[in-house]
């Protein structure tokens, strides 16, 4: 399956999972909202053009916003993590070995520790901006910190469960692709 087709399917899959399942979960606690959809952006290939990455992130966030009725609320944090992503990947992986030979970030390609750091930092940034945008209009500081940390913890749990369930093959980049 080509990388483009695979990512289009993932785009639809993550939006559907977020809208149909995770947004329907009754709140366990006022701090916790399960978010998984932005994993799509973390799984995009290494080689993607940075400008396209921003555009894709914006469209992806906006299409989730169409379902929740808040245009721009999810688009803003998606664009933020899409902008930070290339810098973080450059820091976390050795240039010659990984980026040259593998297609996309995954625990097998990068190792569990760098991948965990990559996912953790980006989900923390995503939730901080998301809650901050909601918070600008009301709320207090403890609520802000609690909500960001609680949501990040649940997101990390969901992401690692996803990684364990859908074991993606650490595919090598070939000349043909």
């Amino acid at each position: 399956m080509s990388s483009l087709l695979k990512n289009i399917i993932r785009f639809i899959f993550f939006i559907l999972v977020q809208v149909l399942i995770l947004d329907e979960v009754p709140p366990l606690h006022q701090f916790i909202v399960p978010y998984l959809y932005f994993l799509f952006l973390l799984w995009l290939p290494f080689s993607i053009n940075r400008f396209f990455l921003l555009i894709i992130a914006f469209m992806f966030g906006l299409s989730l916003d169409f379902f929740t009725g808040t245009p721009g609320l999810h688009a803003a944090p998606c664009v933020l993590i899409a902008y930070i992503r290339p810098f973080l990947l450059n820091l976390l992986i050795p240039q010659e070995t990984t980026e040259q030979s593998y297609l996309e970030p995954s625990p097998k390609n990068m190792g569990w520790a760098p991948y965990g750091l990559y996912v953790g930092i980006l989900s923390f940034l995503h939730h901080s901006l998301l809650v901050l945008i909601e918070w600008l209009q009301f709320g207090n500081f403890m609520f802000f910190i609690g909500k960001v940390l609680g949501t990040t913890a649940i997101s990390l749990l969901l992401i690692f469960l996803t990684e364990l369930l859908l074991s993606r093959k650490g595919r090598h980049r070939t000349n043909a692709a």
Partner: protein
Amino acid sequence: MKNIFLFIRRYFTLLSFLLLEVLAIVLLSNASKSHEAFFSSAVNELTGHFNGWYSGFRGYFGLKEANRQLSEENARLRNMMASNFQAPDTTRKLVTDTLVRDTMGRVRKFTYLPARVIGNTYTLQANFLTLERGSAQGVRKQMAVTGPEGIVGVVVETSANVSKVMSLLHRNSRVSAMLKKDNSAGSIEWDGSNPSFLTMRNVTKGAKVAVGDTVVTSYYSANFPARLMIGKVASISSDQASNFYTLKVKTATNFFNIQYVYLIENARYGEQVQIESNTPKNQ
């Protein structure tokens, strides 16, 4: 000039990042104010169809609860039917009519329209419901929405067959309310933390409020009829510095499994809002 182009090329990614962020914030702030800027009817219709399909599938799981709520409401309404009451004498006869003007000379003010809920969020800070009934079936913006157990929200947007309702669980939601016991007025809002509890502000300290008191819609609202159920007082907090109580109100409506609602049309809504928004001159 050349330097400007060089600058743009050099920082193209950063600039496009900033541009998209600003665009997202602008979209969001426009939407919070008017709820209509970016959401064209086309997109609303598309997500509405999708939600309708999914809700049709999911509706089976809640049929038992929906049946219970509807039959309870039927029982309540049957008890209010005119045929249950005996007229005091035979010279006057009470007739309840569905026409605009009935034989007693009363004018119909409120009309109820049933609708199915096909989309519902309650985990966000700004929650909406989607209803399968739109402007082609008589839905207008700002119509009140109530469920079998209590009020739900206000219509903010309609397309041909689908309409979108700002839930009570929305940070911009404001509904005029009062205590059923002594008609002390206040305003129902949501603080964004727990979807089971609303906040009622500006209740005068003269009110004899107790935990468990019923909160209903007030006589002052333009879109809600008076005395519709909102919830029950769960806790009372009084600020020393002000003359008002702030009450925590448990919602009567269960927002987690709501399936059928009624839209309420006020025939005199436009008239009331217009005269209320007129600024008096020469004062």
